[in-house]
């Protein structure tokens, strides 16, 4: 197909020079020069985003001695696996924290997505009598919150959730913002007529939701599922507030504790005479970076699986009404 217009163009090269250029025009791409510039621009931007993480990996593979003598280097004086060896030594703690994080992330995401989808679907339906009120109740919490102390009191004294794994799951189960996104998504992507035809075929409300609405809304569901997964995976604040029991501490919180401890001890001159014994129990630079690697890799790897839904879900659902 290509050959014919090309030869034709070459014969009438001089006369139709502009035309030939026009033929090469690709509405979905850039012309040569722009393409090169854009590739360099976006490539370097992407590199800037990835670089810190690569740097973390490099630091985690440097030997502690060279770190403290020469500081962080892109090519360390001395490579070493001692950080990962240290993590292997304390593996019982790390595996447990991993387990907690995995459990919280999986159970939390499933629970959270179901609750959000059900709530959002109900308030997306015009037939639902109190949709305005329920929308408002959800929306209100986006504007005002009770504050940390009341939150703490409710969690510990009324719900008795201190030192319970549910303290890591329940506070993040319902997110008003996602409810609003999902509501809009349902209204946009599931036409009323489809629901009506299902009803005529004799489907009940639950069947309609499960068989018709959910399959049509996979991009939206996947997007909030990804957001939730990230939120659960990265959450450390709830653990900081409610968890004392070392066997219930999630991974991110473990990292956070180590960082906080270091900062705190550095800032407190009062502790200097005790420094040796306190610092001995805190992992060193390279070990901390190795922990970051271990804590971040799985979630970074899970991202591509969600990605194909991600862009669609974001653009469709993000228009608030």
């Amino acid at each position, binding site marked *: 197909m290509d050959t014919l217009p090309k030869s034709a163009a070459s014969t009438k090269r001089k006369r139709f020079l502009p035309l030939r250029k026009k033929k090469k025009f690709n509405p979905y791409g850039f012309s040569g020069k722009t393409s090169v510039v854009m590739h360099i621009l976006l490539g370097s931007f992407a590199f800037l985003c990835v670089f810190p993480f690569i740097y973390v990996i490099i630091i985690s593979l440097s030997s502690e001695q060279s770190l403290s003598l020469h500081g962080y280097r892109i090519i360390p004086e001395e490579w070493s696996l001692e950080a990962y060896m240290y993590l292997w030594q304390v593996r019982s703690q790390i595996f447990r924290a991993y387990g907690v994080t995995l459990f919280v992330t999986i159970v939390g995401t499933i629970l959270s997505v179901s609750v959000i989808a059900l709530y959002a679907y109900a308030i997306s339906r015009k037939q639902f009598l109190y949709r305005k009120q329920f929308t408002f109740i959800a929306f209100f919490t986006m504007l005002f919150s009770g504050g940390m102390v009341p939150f703490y*009191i409710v969690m510990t004294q009324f719900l008795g959730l201190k030192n319970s794994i549910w303290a890591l799951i329940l506070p993040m189960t319902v997110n008003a913002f996602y409810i609003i996104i999902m509501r809009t998504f349902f209204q946009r992507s599931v036409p009323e007529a489809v629901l009506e035809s299902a009803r005529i075929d004799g489907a009940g409300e639950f069947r309609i939701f499960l068989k018709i609405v959910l399959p049509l809304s996979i991009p939206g569901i996947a997007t909030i599922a990804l957001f939730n997964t990230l939120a659960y995976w990265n959450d450390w604040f709830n653990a900081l507030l409610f968890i004392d029991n070392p066997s219930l501490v999630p991974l991110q919180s473990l990292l956070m504790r180590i960082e906080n401890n*270091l900062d705190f001890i550095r800032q407190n001159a009062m502790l200097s005479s005790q420094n040796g014994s306190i610092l001995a129990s805190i992992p060193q630079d390279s070990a901390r970076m190795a922990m970051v690697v271990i804590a971040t890799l799985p979630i970074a790897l899970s991202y591509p699986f969600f990605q194909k839904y991600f862009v669609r879900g974001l653009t469709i659902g993000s228009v608030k009404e």
Partner: protein
Amino acid sequence: MKKTILLLAMLLGMVGLLIACGGEEAGEGKSETTENEGGTGDTGEVGEKLDPVTLTWYLIGTPQQDLELVMEEVNKYTEEKINATIDLRLLDWGEFDERMQVITTSGENYDIAFTSSWANNYALNARRGAFAELNELMDQYGKEMKELIDPAFLEGAQIDGKLYAVPTNKEVGQQAVLSFNHELVEKHDLDISTVNSLTDLEPLLAVIKEKETDVTPIATFDAYLPFDSILQEEMPFAFRLDGNTDEVVNKYEEEVTMETLKVMHDYYKKGYIRPDAATSTDSWPLETPNWFVRKELYQPYAESVWSRSAGYEIVTRPLHEPYVFNNSVTGSMQAISTTSQNPERAMMFLNLLNTDPYLRNLIDKGIEGVHYEENADGSITDLPVRVERYNMPSFAIGNQLILKLYEDDPADKWEAFEEFNEKSIPSPALGFYFDSNPVRTEIAAISNVTSEFSPALLKGAVDPEEFIPEFNKKLYEAGMQDVLDEIQRQYDEWKENQ
């Protein structure tokens, strides 16, 4: 978007917290005094037949794997002695302050909590009414402990004549020292015996700078200034340690500050201090011998502790006589909460903890034969499992002077502590706890200005002749004079009642 909301939520949370803090001061203070009176009334009967109780104890420190194992032993003992079991909860260093703040403002029940000048602030919480007043309780249930604890602690820690926490018996004075990397001292045949101040360091630093290219002569530190600081160390309000000690001053206006910081800056210009000193957060770990001199706070035989963790010898020279400051007497204490259901029993436990060597060593070092071994001469040796699974913050728990000694500890370690405590000089403002409430906004503004200027100045990174006047100008714009007046007023009032 999500982040913004989260941020907003957190912001609101903070605001909520602040409001709660402000509002509760008055109300909570009231309710707790009545509860207290009820409590003391009961105590007479409780003394006869002790009901079994559980005491919740929040302590600072990294949670330890063998805690449960040890607490089982502890509980056997305390059940027998005072019919109480202890629920010890360790909260990590970095989060202790925040957690305790939430716990106290939410009015959660607990019995004992670690408090100090640097975490879970003692004066602030005592004023706020979070801690029970202990004078009477201690007279009744803590007589033995009262005799053991150095009186300087018990007097210095009283706020308006009332004690709100039991101080840990340890070194009472605070003494800044310069510690030296002994290997380098020997290698270049340096004489440190003449070093008594920052200025005396000059010739030594010059040698190190010239001959040791891999070594930074000064491991970044804040210059020592001879003042008793009100609030945090770097804040400007302070009392002089000699001369007119009854007048509160802005220490950044004093002659001695200018002189000291000039020396610091001179060292900086000569390259004795690393160029990014003002902003770097590197901790200069002891194990890495890339420094020559550093500043530390001293306690007797600290050099042997430091040498042990460094792996090479470290020697020290004092910068001044040990002083007893508010910060040093309130360096580590245990308070009893006003929400405690059993303040008497909590006091009995603290009494036992501070006087009974068996209990004190058990909580500190773990179980004999499991975590440590006792040698023939009564000293102990750590088993590896203790460092890994039961590494407790010794100084934060209680009376240090009844602890067993390690085999390489000098036998007279605790006697040296007592001696050190005796020669410590009480600072002029010892026992004066400034109530910052009337000038809260000014202090917040001053704190901002201070954190902008003081790190660079104190570490020598900027020229004091240029920046101190600017710093002071901004301090006065932020309301410095009002705060100085308020401190002076409270101080005079306090002084009169002495």
